[in-house]
């Protein structure tokens, strides 16, 4: 018996034609997107396929990143699961229409399909509520013109669901007397409810409406495929791909190095979109502009011009304006080929906004103030549900300003010159680098390199008066625990963290090469450092240049020494209510949240209170990304962070980073409480109990 739910032959033909047209547009959209993205430079994202796939499954099924923010998380969860399962229901019905095949007869399937449709509708309504009633700030609801593509997309999905239910409602009425049919829908509570509106229609009329509603539903489904080519909102299609292509390996090893040996190379930074990698160009298409990044961005939250979301949106707009590809299909010689022509070749970009020319990427599209405001704290990337990489883009743009244009803040120039001449950003004479350790009985490797650890002190620990006390405290701990260690003394150079993040890759690499040469010369295997910036750079970035060492942060070593009983943490002699600040480069970049807290807990008399923004939601002190050396205008990030600390009424603040130490001390002075509330490195708190 022919299934009466099947289309007529004419219907099948029409369906095939309409479907083919929709698929054609979808395919062309994909080709065009591919051509836009591949305008970028090459970068390798095709290793560890298993890990990549698992990431997609994990983040698509469980959506742990999205659910970090409950309300938006639920909205997305309903959307995603609703539409994903509902899409299967549409296919299921399509197969019945085309081939008369009913894959599932179990009423449970129809229940699931109904629930999915309900999820989708509730999710859509809730998203509209968040966007237009609540006006959640991070969503930055735009003008009607800007909202149109989003509304169109959402409306098409919503109507697709509604017409599915209408069609099923009529189907239930039309098939009520066919044996075996009504049993399929016993659990389909929404479809059955809709059917109740049509009860009383004769089966022929009901059948007519069933098909009419179904055609309308399919028009919306095909419309979604077509919209992929024209809409800027293609997040649902690109996001899974972007998660698949995400950066793997250490989070702190995301910045790619430049080969300065390449004599052919003329520019070194990102001056135009074609200088980005293809992954950088794909990121903005995966972005749903949810704004979680800017909600956690210390620059944005202190009213700087930077928003990570906006940077990506600007890049997308620049791509669209530069490329706008037209695809021509030809079938010459029996082979189908695609010729992609670009409205403006990449070379024309950057000529300035003259007659038909595309805007300049830096200056007209993204302002230098935005580019310099980033502290590279990684809060944006930690939150981003689609694994976008904002910071490498900022570094690329900074490289253009520093290496190509030589147009950057004067304070940065001073820091660079200081690092070049005296191997430290302060510019203090390099010969005095080891002076802090005189009389402490610390070995210098040039005299005796037979030690287990190199204690890489870093610039702050060597030259900053306040931070030198941290170095002295750490030496006291290491000596008390009988750790075999030595320092490089005058042979130590700046690790280069600030130089690299300020865009001066050339200076960074020259510092790195000198350091690695010295370390290899002394056969260094293990390195201790008290600075998370040195830690991250030595551990994650030096291997790019042939310097692979076992690098350990001093808080990790202290925790281990306490655990092994080599250090007995006593009492500091006073009871202190202390709040601990997670530095970005130890925390988010290297996932070390436990060790410093273990050390603090081991010290009797300390009571630890947590700030609201802690662990991987920790708020930057404002000094990362080389911002330590730049002027900050407007509300200061360190003041904001100090206020967050003061909100939990601590008697002292504990840090693991020399920059954070400086920033908090300045913040406490700003708030005029520096006399009563002190900032300590974890090592200082431990050292005074020994």
């Amino acid at each position: 018996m022919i299934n009466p739910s099947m289309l007529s032959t004419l219907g099948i033909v029409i369906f095939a034609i309409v479907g083919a047209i929709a698929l054609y547009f979808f395919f062309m959209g994909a080709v065009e997107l591919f051509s836009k993205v591949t305008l970028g430079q090459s970068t390798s994202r095709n290793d560890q396929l298993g890990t990549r796939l698992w990431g997609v499954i994990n983040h698509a099924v469980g959506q742990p990143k999205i659910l970090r923010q409950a309300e938006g998380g639920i909205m997305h969860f309903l959307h995603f699961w609703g539409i994903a399962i509902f899409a299967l229901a549409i296919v299921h019905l399509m197969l019945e229409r085309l081939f008369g095949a009913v894959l599932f007869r179990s009423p449970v399937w129809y229940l699931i399909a109904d629930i999915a449709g309900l999820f989708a509708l509730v999710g859509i309504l809730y998203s509209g509520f968040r966007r237009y009633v609540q006006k959640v700030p991070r969503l930055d609801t735009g003008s009607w013109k800007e909202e149109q593509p989003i509304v169109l997309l959402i409306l098409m999905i919503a109507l697709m669901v509604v017409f599915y239910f209408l069609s099923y409602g009529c189907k239930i009425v039309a098939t009520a007397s066919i044996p075996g049919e009504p049993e399929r829908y016993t659990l389909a509570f929404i479809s059955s409810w809709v059917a109740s509106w049509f009860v009383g229609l004769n089966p022929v009329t009901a059948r007519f409406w069933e098909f009419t509603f179904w055609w309308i539903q399919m028009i919306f489904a095909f419309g979604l495929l077509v919209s992929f080519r024209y809409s800027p909102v293609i997040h649902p299609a690109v996001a899974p791909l972007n998660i698949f292509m995400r950066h793997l390996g250490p989070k702190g090893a995301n910045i790619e190095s430049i080969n300065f040996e390449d004599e052919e190379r003329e520019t070194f930074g990102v001056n135009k979109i074609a200088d980005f990698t293809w992954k950088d160009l794909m990121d903005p298409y995966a972005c749903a502009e949810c704004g979680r990044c800017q909600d956690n961005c210390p620059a944005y939250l202190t009213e700087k011009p930077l928003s990570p979301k906006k940077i990506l949106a600007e890049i997308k707009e620049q791509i669209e304006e530069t490329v706008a590809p037209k695809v021509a299909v030809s079938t010459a010689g029996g082979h189908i080929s695609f010729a992609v022509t670009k409205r403006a070749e990449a070379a024309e970009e950057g000529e300035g906004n003259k007659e038909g020319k595309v805007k300049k990427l830096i200056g007209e599209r993204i302002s230098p103030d935005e580019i310099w405001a980033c502290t590279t704290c990684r809060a944006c990337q930690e939150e981003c549900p689609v694994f976008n990489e904002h910071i490498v883009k900022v570094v690329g743009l900074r490289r253009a300003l520093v290496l190509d244009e030589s147009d950057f803040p004067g304070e940065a120039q001073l820091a660079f010159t200081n690092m070049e001449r005296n191997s430290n950003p302060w510019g203090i004479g390099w010969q005095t680098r080891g002076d802090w350790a005189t009389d402490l009985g610390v070995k210098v490797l040039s005299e005796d390199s037979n030690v287990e650890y190199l204690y890489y002190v870093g610039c702050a620990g060597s030259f900053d008066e306040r931070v030198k006390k941290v170095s002295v405290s750490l030496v006291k701990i290491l000596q008390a625990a009988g750790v075999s260690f030595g320092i490089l003394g005058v042979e130590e150079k700046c690790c280069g963290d600030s130089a690299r993040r300020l865009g001066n890759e050339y200076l960074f690499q020259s510092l790195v090469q000198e350091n690695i040469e010295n370390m290899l010369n002394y056969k260094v295997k293990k390195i201790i450092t008290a600075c998370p910036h040195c830690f991250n750079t030595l551990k994650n970035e030096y291997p790019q240049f042939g310097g692979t060492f076992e690098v350990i942060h001093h808080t990790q070593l202290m925790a281990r020494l306490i655990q092994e009983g080599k250090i007995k943490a006593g009492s500091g002699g006073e009871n202190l209510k202390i709040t601990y600040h997670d530095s970005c480069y130890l925390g988010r970049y290297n996932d070390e949240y436990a060790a410093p807290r273990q050390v603090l807990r081991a010290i009797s008399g300390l009571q630890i209170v947590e700030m609201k923004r802690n662990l991987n939601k920790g708020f930057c002190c404002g000094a990362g990304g080389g911002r330590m050396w730049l002027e900050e205008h407007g509300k200061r990030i360190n003041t904001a962070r100090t206020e967050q600390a003061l909100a939990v009424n601590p008697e002292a603040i504990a840090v693991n980073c020399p920059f954070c130490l400086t920033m908090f001390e300045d913040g406490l002075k700003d708030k005029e409480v520096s006399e009563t509330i002190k900032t300590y490195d974890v090592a200082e708190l431990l050292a005074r109990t020994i």
Partner: protein
Amino acid sequence: MKIVALVKQTFDSEAKIALEGGKINRQGISLIMNPYDEYAVEEALKLKEKHGGEVTVVTVGPDEATEAVRQALAMGADQSILVNPGTEDIDEYTTAKILAKAVSGLEYDLIIGGFRAIDDGSAQVAGRVAEILNLPVVNMVTKLEVDGGKAIATSDIEGGSAVMEVPLPAVITAQKGLNEPRYPSMKGIMQAKKKPLKKIGLSDLGLDASQVAAKVKVLSYSLPPARAAGKIIPGEPAEAAAALAKALREEAKII
């Protein structure tokens, strides 16, 4: 316009100076382009950008002074000449004489240099070069405009500034505040490797050592006494203030 920039390589201002055998121990000392000469190079480049032309950098010094010259080339200078006098015993007379001779073989509309070098601080060389070449000189310039055949220069004078006009060619010496020297771009650094850097000796200029022999001889060098540690006077404010006044009168003898 054709501009000649005079530069000198000096010790880094943060260098730790040590004496050995009555002389300065040059071992391990970082060398930089004299900061006042950096202002001069920057101003020369700005004039070139505005009026067109070329910038030639001239220096007198040992071969290691190449570094300073390369920096000027990386900043954007077009070519350079390094004259190695073959001896360390040189004075302002020697340097000026050699520079004047080297410059006289070039075409120039303007000669610009730092008003002094941060090492010996004698502030003589540019003035001497002007004298030998019979050119007008304006010292310690903080603002410079070149128009037609003349230069309008704002010069630091005691307690104020003076605006002066000189016909070109002339010698200008740069004072802090004239500009903010640029940081070389990668393109600049790469191109500097390919720009002409002429290394010559006295004989190439038609000079012999006796003609430029130093007229001033350094008898000895001494380092300034190490700064004594500060003194904290404890006690109640009134007592401490009294003790401070006493110390200022009796120990420091300044009130």
